[in-house]
Structure formats: C-alpha cells, structure tokens
C-alpha cells in the first residue's frame, strides 16, 4: 500500500494533525487514525476537509465513520475519484 499513488500525499496531509509524541515515521498503511496515531475527533474532521480540498471530492458522514485506517482513507479516495470520472 506504500506504493499507492496517493500514499505520500495522504501522509503529508496527516502530518500536521499528529500529536507531538507520534512520529510520522510510525505511520503505516494499517495504522488506525484515532487509536494508534492519536488524531483526535476534531482534527480528524480537519483531515477529511483537507482530503476533500486536495482531491476535489466530498465525503459523507457515514464514509468518514468508515475511515478507520490509512488504507481505508486511500480506498475512499480511490472510490471517490473513480465515481468522479464516471
């Protein structure tokens, strides 16, 4: 998953929301955004809004709830971009 075309972009989007005691180096594809990366619920909203701006997509409440891990976020981005193209 690290070779996913959007992995590095997503990594950069996540970086500002990591608490000081969580290193960006610890980020893995299966990292849970809340329980492992310690991104709080307020910052998770900001991250989703940043993802929307970056890819010009719009996520719904239920989709955000499904976005548990970095991989989930990548799948969501893929699906939204595919839907946009079709």
């Amino acid at each position, binding site marked *: 998953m690290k070779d996913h075309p959007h992995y590095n972009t997503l990594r950069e989007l996540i970086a500002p929301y990591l608490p000081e005691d969580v290193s960006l180096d610890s980020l893995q594809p299966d990292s849970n955004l809340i329980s492992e990366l310690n991104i*709080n619920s*307020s910052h*998770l*909203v*900001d991250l*989703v*809004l940043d993802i929307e701006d970056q890819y010009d997509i719009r996520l719904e*409440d239920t989709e955000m709830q499904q976005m548990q891990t970095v991989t989930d976020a990548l799948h969501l981005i893929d699906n939204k971009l595919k839907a946009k193209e079709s």
Partner: protein
Amino acid sequence: MEQSLEYLIKQLPYGDGFLFADEILAIDSEQISGEFHFHKGLNFYESHFQDHPVTPGVILIECCAQIGLACFGIYLSTMAHEAQKTETNQAFALVASDMEFFSPVYPGTKVRVSAQKEYFRFGKLKVKVKMENEKGELICKGTLAGMRGI
C-alpha cells in the same frame, strides 16, 4: 423551520452561575447574534480582581462560545437532523479557540456576540466570532470550534 430563539438558550446545559447568554437576537444557517448582560452581581467579580472588578478573558470566551458555538450548533444540528429525520445529541464542546482581546468588560456591561459560520461538517462547527459593547466597540474577536456529542 419554526423554532423559538428562547428555546436555544434553554437547551444549554448550564446553571445560572455559568450561563452567559441572555437572548438570541437573530439566527439563520450562516450566522447568529445574541446578548449577555455582565451584571454587577456575578460572583467572579469579588475576586477578579480584588477591589478592581473586571470580567476574566476566559469568561468572555465562554460567552462567545455559548452564543456563537453552542446555541448556533444546536440550531444547525436541529436543522440537519430534521432534514434527515434522525435524532441528535445536541451537546457541543469547545475544542479550539484563537481569540484576541481589545477592551476590558467592567461590571454592568451588556455585550453583543456575533458569529459567522466557517463550516459545519461531520459534527464540527467552526465560526468567526466577535464581541462588542453597547457602543459598538470591539471587545474581542477570533475563531472558535466545537464538536457535537463528545
């Protein structure tokens, strides 16, 4: 949507000693304004400061948050959930503040709080807010954010 503005203040989970919203003057999906009278009998004036009562900055932020975030958030949540016909947890918690202060608020001052929505998404409300006195002089301004149901 029919909704009493007084109803919004009654939804706030604060007792008299920590309620800093008297009246909502106007509200729609983009903005809110309301008033509070910092009357001389408020208990913190006894000790902030001794022999020189002035309203603490944190109380000014709280006043801005109760009107500009909590009341506004309840209104917006109710609108959204009526549209979706779902139940909502209407409690809002302050999660971020970035405020600047320009004028002190002495006992007896009535203030007006105005807030403009930046966004309300995924249960998070972010607003630009300002507080003015009766003369229209700026007391404080900045941004506040709150989350529903945490």
